[in-house]
Structure formats: C-alpha cells, structure tokens
C-alpha cells in the first residue's frame, strides 16, 4: 500500500486535450494555470495548421510561467482515407500529437492502421459513429494508436444520454484492454470549472471499467510516453526507431 502511494506520488500527470481559445489569452492563462495548480505537468492544446506563430509563442510563454509542459496537438476529421493520408503527410512533422476523430468507418480503419496516428477519438454524442470494435482494436494494436476518451461528456450529459455513453465506453475500454490498445483519458474541456484533478479523472474512469492502476496509467504513463516518443521522433537527431545521432563532426 505504501509502495503504491509512493509510486503514484512520482507520477507525472498529463491532460492531452485542453481546449484553449488562443484568441483569448486571459482565459487561456486561467485554464492553464488551473491545470498546473490541479497537478498536471504536461498538457496538449489542439492547434490548427493556420495557427499563427505569435499565438503559439504566447501559449508557450503562458505554459512556462505556469511551469507546465506544452505539447502541440492537431485534431483531424477526415472524410475519406485518402484525405487522412494526405493530411498526415502534410502535418505529421509539425505537431507532437495527432488525434483523428473518426466520423466514418473508412477513416476509422485507416487511422487505426496508420503508424502516424497517435489517438483515435470517437464522437461521444452519436453512438452509431463509435466504430471502436474488435476489428478496429486489432488494427490499432498492430500500429501505435491509442484510444482517447474525453471526460467532458460524462460531466455535461445527464440521464439516458450519459447511460448510453457509459455503456459504449465500457465496451470500448474492455475491447481496448483485450487487444492491448493503450487508453488515454483526457479532459476535453474548454472551461476551467470542468477541469478535475488527475485522481478525480481516474475516479471518473472507474465508471467505464478501468481499475485504479489502468486509470492512473491512462492519465500519466500512457500520454507521457506518447509525447516523449513523438518528441524523440521529431528531434533532428532521430534517424530510425532505436537509432539516433549521438555525436557528429570531424572527430567522430
């Protein structure tokens, strides 16, 4: 028990889906500071390819003042597999995290098997568009994609809609576990009052069948390792998986 408590104290918690309005720096600053106060060490903010450089710099400054690490993220909503491939080719090297919101089966299957996709996400309100079934999980397990689950809908929905969502999430989490697809739990909120402490996010994850260890991994180890891996890949010293430049110059 003591050992577990010690292990959880050392965890670096991450929320890789913080919806921050870059046009409103005051609110952005409030949300980011709140996330830092609640105990997160790493956040990711969805950006778009059109995001101006000064906005990104401002965001990075807010994060460094709040002593929180920022990862760049983009959310893609492709309609066809060609569109997804094209977007990935164009954007993979510009963002640290790529999430594909799968709105149709074709895009979902392509996203699951593409090694450039980090997160698979499914619309929470339309239950017919949740394509995370066993076939999807099998493809995802062979690539590196993780299943991202946003907590926001669990907070804002009520009654039958929340019941249906919980039922879908429980099924998807069980499938993900069966096929060893990592699960990442994020907040997905744009309002600071909906932000929760990491342990509270883990507690909400119990609702869809994650045990304590898996829930804590879904908000710490899993997201942190994805960002770490992508940062290594985006580093100029990266050559291939397992190979990187350690030293270069005439004396090598």
């Amino acid at each position, binding site marked *: 028990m003591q050992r577990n408590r010690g292990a959880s104290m050392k965890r670096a918690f991450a929320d890789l889906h913080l919806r921050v309005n870059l046009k409103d720096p005051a609110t952005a600053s409030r949300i980011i500071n709140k996330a830092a106060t*609640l105990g997160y060490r790493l956040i990711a903010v969805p950006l778009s390819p059109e995001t101006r450089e000064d906005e990104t710099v401002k965001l990075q400054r807010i994060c460094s003042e709040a002593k929180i690490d920022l990862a760049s993220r983009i959310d893609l909503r492709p309609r066809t597999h060609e569109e997804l491939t094209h977007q990935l080719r164009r954007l993979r090297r510009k963002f640290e995290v790529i999430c594909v919101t799968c709105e149709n089966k074709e895009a979902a299957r392509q996203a699951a098997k593409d090694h450039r996709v980090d997160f698979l996400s499914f619309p929470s309100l339309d239950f017919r568009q949740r394509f995370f079934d066993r076939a999807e999980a099998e493809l995802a397990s062979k690539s590196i994609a993780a299943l991202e689950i946003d907590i926001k809908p669990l*907070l804002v929905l009520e009654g039958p809609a929340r019941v249906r969502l919980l039922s879908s999430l429980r099924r998807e989490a069980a499938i993900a576990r069966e096929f060893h697809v990592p699960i990442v739990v994020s907040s997905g909120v744009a309002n600071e*009052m*909906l932000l929760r*402490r990491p*342990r*509270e996010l883990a507690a*909400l994850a*119990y609702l869809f069948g994650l045990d304590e260890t898996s829930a804590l991994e879904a908000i710490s180890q899993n997201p942190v390792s994805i960002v770490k891996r992508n940062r290594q890949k985006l580093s100029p010293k990266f050559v291939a998986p397992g190979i990187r430049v350690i030293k270069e110059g005439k004396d090598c």
Partner: protein
Amino acid sequence: MKRAKRRYLALQVDSDGAPAPKEFMDAVWSAVSKLYGEYGASLTGLALIDYNAEKKTAVIRTALATVDIVRTALASITSLAGKETAVHVVVVSGTIKSLYEKIR
C-alpha cells in the same frame, strides 16, 4: 458485529457563489444517486462533518468500501445552487484528527 471502517474526505468547493451546507450535501447526495442509484447511495453512509462557507471547504465522512464511489460522484458535480462548481478532494484520511493534521 464488526466495526464499520470509515474514511474522512477534506474537500475544496470551487464555486462562484457561497453555497449553504444543505445545498452542498444535497448536491453530493444527488450526484451519488444519479450515478449509483438509491441503493448505491445507501451504502455510502455519507455525513457532513464540517463545512466552512467562507473558505469553501468541507469535511465529509463515508464508508471505506465506498470511497471510490464518493470520489467519482464528487468529481461529477458541475453545479451547486445554480452556479458552476467543481468539488475537489484535497485529503482522504482514516481519522478526523489525522485529516486536520494533513490539511495543516
């Protein structure tokens, strides 16, 4: 009969308004009942031990077996007396004495 083990939770109420103790406990009971039903709520043995409206802190008691249920329900609270609210668990402890020592 075996003594029932309990846990004490120190909470921080993050809200624009200043909710009354009754409003706070109603919100907690309502959240537990919505997520786990009346049967689940009946297992928790929830009780308000202390409430400070100025500092917006509260101490509640629950059965050890239902700490996770209460944690989840508290995290699902989004409004209190019509105002946007978040309830954060600050400390969990086995006795009131050690709870206050940890808070200090």
